[in-house]
């Protein structure tokens, strides 16, 4: 028999330390997990969506580019189709404009109205935009068309999911 006797006091303090420690770990662990969560998260393909358009195919004439992605809303997953008018400006920069009219949200089209060639035309209330998306004064829209952010990877055009507003473009 071992001579080391555990006193009542020691036994109690070990037990309390053990149980207390266990409880402390149990409460701290989830917090730690949450703190490092962003690091552990797998990057879900980024915020850019691949289009079917190759960058070399783009000209200085705006062309319609449709791209699709899945969007989760609660537990409902839906397919979202976005449209962009894409062209290269004089400096060769790619411009990807949102077709959503800044007035009330109709879809604008390039060069669709005979009276207003080489402009974006909104069929709802006759809003007009220049090629770079600037709204033509005197027509209903109050601001320029939104723009998508873009990336080029292996010659393919990638666009952001949402277009964002431009100021004084």
């Amino acid at each position, binding site marked *: 028999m071992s001579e080391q006797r555990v006193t009542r006091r020691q036994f109690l303090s070990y037990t309390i330390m053990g149980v207390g420690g266990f409880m402390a770990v149990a409460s701290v662990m989830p917090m730690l997990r949450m703190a490092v969560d962003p690091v552990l998260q797998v990057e879900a393909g980024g915020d850019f969506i691949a289009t079917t358009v190759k960058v070399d195919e783009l000209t200085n004439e705006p062309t319609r580019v449709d791209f*699709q992605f899945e969007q989760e809303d609660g537990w409902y997953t839906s*397919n979202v*189709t976005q449209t962009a008018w894409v062209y290269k400006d004089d400096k060769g920069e790619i411009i990807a404009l949102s077709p*959503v*009219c800044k*007035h*009330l*949200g*109709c*879809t604008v089209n390039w060069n669709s109205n005979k009276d207003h060639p080489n402009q974006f035309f*909104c*069929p*709802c*209330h006759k809003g007009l935009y220049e090629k770079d998306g600037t709204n033509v004064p005197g027509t*209903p829209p109050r601001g320029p068309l939104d723009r998508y952010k873009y990336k080029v990877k292996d010659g393919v055009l990638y666009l952001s999911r949402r277009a964002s507003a431009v100021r004084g473009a």
Partner: protein
Amino acid sequence: MRWTAQDFSTFTLSKEYIDTVLIPMVPISFDERGKDAASGSEFIQMIAIEIERQFKGRILLLPSFVYFLNFSDQDKKMLLTKWHHELTKKSFKHLFFISSDQSWKSIVEQLKGELIWIPSIPLEHLDGTNKMAIIDNQVKQLLNFFVEKWQAAEDVNA
């Protein structure tokens, strides 16, 4: 605009711009015509949603006008008259019903309303891209129809 709280707020703020209502007509039946009815409903609703997307700022897309295929013509007429009456009371200048059921034609005509009649295309065996291409194609033709109607009304006023 759609029949949502958010769009309704926009609608109340910009009433003068939103002068057109679009109502998809959706049939229900549980007999042998059921499948065609369902397929037609699906098709019409997809078309209506796409039209709304194109003309969001001028068209208010209402929830569907739902009816049973075994309603008599009289019932149908009575129902539609009530809808028509309520909607024309408000400031809407253009009222369009959209359906793939031909039996509405004469009823809508009697009410002096506009019926867009499109024969339904079964979409159940098509995948997403083909479905979209078909809907897109149909909608493209309808867009001009709307623009022409609006233009015609403006020409009368001018």
